[in-house]
């Protein structure tokens, strides 16, 4: 994904830290003073919701996390855990060194700008989904979002989205039950087919049109 050039990476080696699989990197509600760059391995972002641990995201090489700590010591909104099977290598940057790090590593600075731009877009897109009030519309719009994210898709043809009900449920901010129900309805209507790790969408343009027109109605009433 978003790797820095090799020599830029070597310069940052002194910030390197390793975690064994399963080890907590930081914990929800802990004050956040560092942000991290994934050098090797995978990191899961989890949150305990209603007494269950829920995976919100899985990060890979080149990803950044904990970036809200760049400016302030807000409590962490989720936990980060090293994933197996191998050791996870991270670069760990403390807010206090941030200026010096940026000064010495303009490439990293640029990379952060790119990552923030994407995060802002994703966050806004999620907000748009959450503002829809019917579960089925939300689920449709999650599929729209996943389709839009793939540059290579021809949205005028049927598409296969790599996703699963769990991910859709997280994005839609819905209970699993509601998500399943909405997905089943769409499947019964012949609009989608649900596989274990993918969803086949016959005509995503339909979903886009429907969501867009509902979105407009929301504000004109």
């Amino acid at each position, binding site marked *: 994904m978003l790797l820095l050039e090799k020599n830029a990476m070597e310069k940052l080696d002194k910030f390197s830290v390793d975690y064994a699989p399963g080890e907590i990197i930081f*914990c*929800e509600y802990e004050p956040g003073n560092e942000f991290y760059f994934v050098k090797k391995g995978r990191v899961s972002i989890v949150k305990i919701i209603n007494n269950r641990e829920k995976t919100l995201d899985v990060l890979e090489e080149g990803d950044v996390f904990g970036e809200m700590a760049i*400016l302030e010591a807000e409590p962490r909104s989720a936990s980060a855990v090293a994933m197996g099977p191998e050791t996870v290598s991270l670069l760990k940057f403390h807010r206090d060194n941030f200026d010096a790090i940026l000064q010495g590593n303009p*490439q990293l*600075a640029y990379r952060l700008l790119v990552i923030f731009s994407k995060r*802002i877009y994703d*966050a806004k897109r999620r907000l748009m989904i959450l*503002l829809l009030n019917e579960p089925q519309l939300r689920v449709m719009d999650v599929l729209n979002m996943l389709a839009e994210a793939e540059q290579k898709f021809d949205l005028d043809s049927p598409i296969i989205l790599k996703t699963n009900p769990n991910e859709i449920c997280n994005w839609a*901010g819905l209970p699993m039950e509601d998500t399943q129900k909405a997905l089943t309805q769409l499947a019964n209507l012949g609009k989608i087919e649900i596989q274990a790790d993918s969803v086949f969408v016959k005509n995503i343009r339909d979903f886009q049109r429907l969501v867009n027109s509902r979105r407009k109605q929301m504000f*004109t009433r």
Partner: protein
Amino acid sequence: MSSGVGKVTTRSYKSGSVVYFEGDKSEYIYILKAGKVLLTYLKPETGEEVKEHIKPGEFFGVKSALGRYPREETAQTLTDVVVLVLTLGDFESIVLGNIAVVKKMLSVFSNQLRRIGKAQREVLGETNVVNPEAELFKIGEYYFRTQKYSQALYAFKKYMGYYPDGLNAQNSMQRIKDIQSGNFSNELPPPSDDFQDSSSAANDSGFGGFSDFGTDSNDSPPDMTDFDSGFSVSHATELSSEMDDFLGGTSSAGGGLSPEDKIENARSLFASGDPRSAEPILKEIIEDASLEHGASAKTFEEAHIEYGKVLMKLGRLQDSLTAFSNFVKKFPQSKSAKAALYNSGLIFMQAGQKQKAAAYLQKAASMPPADDITFDAKRRLTQLQ
């Protein structure tokens, strides 16, 4: 229309032209050289149109180009305009040579991200203010219960590191011992009170001189009858400057932040334990009377209440009380009037003036909606009795 100047292209537009439309895909980033550009977009929560003016020296189109997603706003010219058109490569080389610009953009970006996160939580109904201390302990308990002992140990140890005198310190210590000794069945005493003392800093700073504080005739809470009714929830989500709104091009470093960014900065500083630095920023906002009726009216209002809180934290209780009282007079319809009354109650409490404290707290507790403040105010009232 285009002419190369060095490596970067300059382009001129007539007044009334569109530089790009919302939904366009493009990798160009612009710096306005001369003239006026207007960005317009719809606010996602309300569908209302938001306008943003770009001034010479400012960038626009940055985020969508960097993130490689469609433009989120339409950019049109209000006068004849000259722009510099940068490719991503041009932009990268400018940025690599000027870390001050990156830092400023990062700060604007991270504020935007925070605002959107806040809006998301509001939609999801996750707005309750939680106490990180109690929650961190609960995380440890969750892992303990689910027998993930190494994770539990992590959380409890962190708890002890951050809150050695915390309400759950004894229990955390007990858990650490339990885990290390393999005793996984120990029952803890009932969960501790997670009462937050938001004014502990002021408590520490000697309080002798305040006994005469507020003994003037103005004994009752100010103008409270006015907002018994009509406490409508007009709490619009902060998501106003959602654009590529950093300012000042490559030269200016500090100035040019929008009031929304300023207040976020001040809140960050306050939250990270630096009220002293937050104070002048908030003061600057509330002294700018031009904000009162513009697009930043909400921010202007919020800055007043934040200012009161900051003064309180700094131990300037009399000033703080004045700030809260002015707030209630100035914005009787504000949702935050309740917070202002509650905090005034706390100040009187600290000053040992129980009756006044009770009057303010009672008022705050009686105001709809029933939220965290209601709850805290009731607790304080019980404490007073």
